[in-house]
């Protein structure tokens, strides 16, 4: 079953992600892909994540297709205008890439080419509408195309954004624009996430809770301090501290597995998106701990 069919069937899905490298050495990425093959329902390929220049996400997705793994193409609006975005979407589609995650994209100032011209000709809501148009056989200028796409397309949302109300308004707009599924920014506070899901459940969309594996107290503090929209509650920091340095990663994986179990058993959302950030080999371990493998 495809990612779309699995998610729409109501089965609890698991997605993870791979980040293409800077440079042409794809050994690590291929290794990670093979490791996750047959275990996750689909793999996101990040689009020059954090505005750091790397292999493009379309090429990464194509490699996944060749390895028999279903990709989710992450597409940001930072580096291409509406012509480039649409052209790349059509190109991705004919290469067998059927899922797209539309996002605005981190600012170039976050990355390694700070003097680059940020594009943002479109933003996430407009990109979603654009994909919807391509699916209906017309481009953004209203031209009829020879052959439409049939993308399953989604977006991201930050359930812990502060303030939350404008973020929820944007969530609403993304759904109006046609988003079918959401992968959230990392969440740690399940009770708070339930509150967000009460809002999300009013809409006919699927939601995958984002999980970032905690590997140390330092990482938890870093996330709290530096990543907008991520809040690691003190209880988990204490848990990591109590585990000691050597057992911290194990504890972080236990926390993630616990969350997956709870999200699934209590039917809180439709799946999880595990962001391992360089620890892709731990994804199957977490899935095992959560009883998914």
């Amino acid at each position, binding site marked *: 079953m495809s990612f779309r069919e699995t998610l729409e069937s109501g089965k609890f899905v698991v997605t993870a992600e791979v980040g293409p490298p800077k440079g042409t050495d794809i050994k690590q990425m291929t290794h990670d892909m093979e490791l996750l093959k047959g275990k996750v329902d689909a793999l996101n390929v990040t689009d020059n994540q954090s505005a750091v220049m790397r292999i493009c996400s379309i090429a990464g997705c194509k490699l996944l297709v060749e390895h028999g793994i279903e990709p989710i193409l992450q597409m940001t609006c930072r580096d291409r205008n509406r012509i480039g975005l649409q052209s790349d979407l059509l190109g991705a589609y004919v290469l067998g890439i059927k899922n797209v995650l539309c996002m605005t994209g981190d600012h170039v*100032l976050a990355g390694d080419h700070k003097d680059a011209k940020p594009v943002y000709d479109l*933003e*996430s809501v*407009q990109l979603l509408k654009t994909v919807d148009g391509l699916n209906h056989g017309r481009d953004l200028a209203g031209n009829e195309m020879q052959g439409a796409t049939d993308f399953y397309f989604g977006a991201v949302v930050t359930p812990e954004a502060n*303030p939350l109300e*404008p973020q929820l308004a944007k969530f*609403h*707009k993304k759904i109006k624009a046609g988003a079918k599924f959401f992968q959230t920014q990392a969440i740690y506070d399940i009770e708070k996430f339930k509150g967000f899901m009460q809002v999300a459940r009013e809409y006919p969309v699927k939601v995958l809770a984002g999980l970032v594996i905690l590997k140390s107290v330092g990482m938890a503090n870093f996330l709290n301090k530096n990543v*907008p929209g991520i809040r690691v509650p003190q209880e988990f920091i204490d848990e990591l501290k109590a585990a000691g340095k050597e057992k911290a990663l194990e504890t972080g994986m236990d926390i993630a597995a616990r969350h997956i179990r709870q999200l699934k058993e209590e039917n809180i959302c439709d799946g999880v998106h595990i962001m391992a950030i360089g620890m892709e080999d731990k994804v199957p371990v977490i899935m095992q701990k959560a009883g998914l493998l």
Partner: protein
Amino acid sequence: MIITEKKDRAKLLETVKDYKSFFLLGCSECATLCGTGGEPELKEMKELLEANGKTVTGTFVAKTGCQVLGTKVELKGHKEALEATDCIIVMSCGAGTQSAVEIFPQIAVYPANNSAFLGNMTRLQMFDERCSLCGDCILDQTGGICPVTACPKGILNGPCGGTNDGNCEISPDIKCAWVRIYERMGKLGKTVEFKEMVLEPKRWSASIKPRRVNAREEKK
């Protein structure tokens, strides 16, 4: 107004090193308010040039340096000084510099300033950028706050995921434009409108350069 900043003086001296006699042209509008092209700055420049062995044949603060014809008329009284100069240094914006280029096709013209942006003066000599001159104003739909300018990404349909306690991901000194718009529209009782409006991609064709407006035609 057009916000200008002084170019590095050492670099400017290097750029004009081959010229000997200078005429300094300021502007009584924006550049004077920015402290880059009023009487005090012209005096300072004159002293700097003279200290570097140059001659200054004359100085003048134009009323409105970007008004080509007006500036040309005003400069008629400085004919002699201008005839004796081999370089005009314009101490206003890029528009003022190019007025001088148009008026004096035979004389070298150099800018003393960098033109930064269209700004609002919030306090004396403190300026904020609030309008990008995009040619397709959407302030009517965004509570009067321009996201094209106030958001570093210029995005049109709400805050991105980088909103950080109401501030921008690129700097805690920038309040998120879309949080500001949300708050402002809330005060105007337009929270529902905020939620429902989906702005179309901008019409960037409205800002293809060089732009030209003929207001006379519109009066016909």
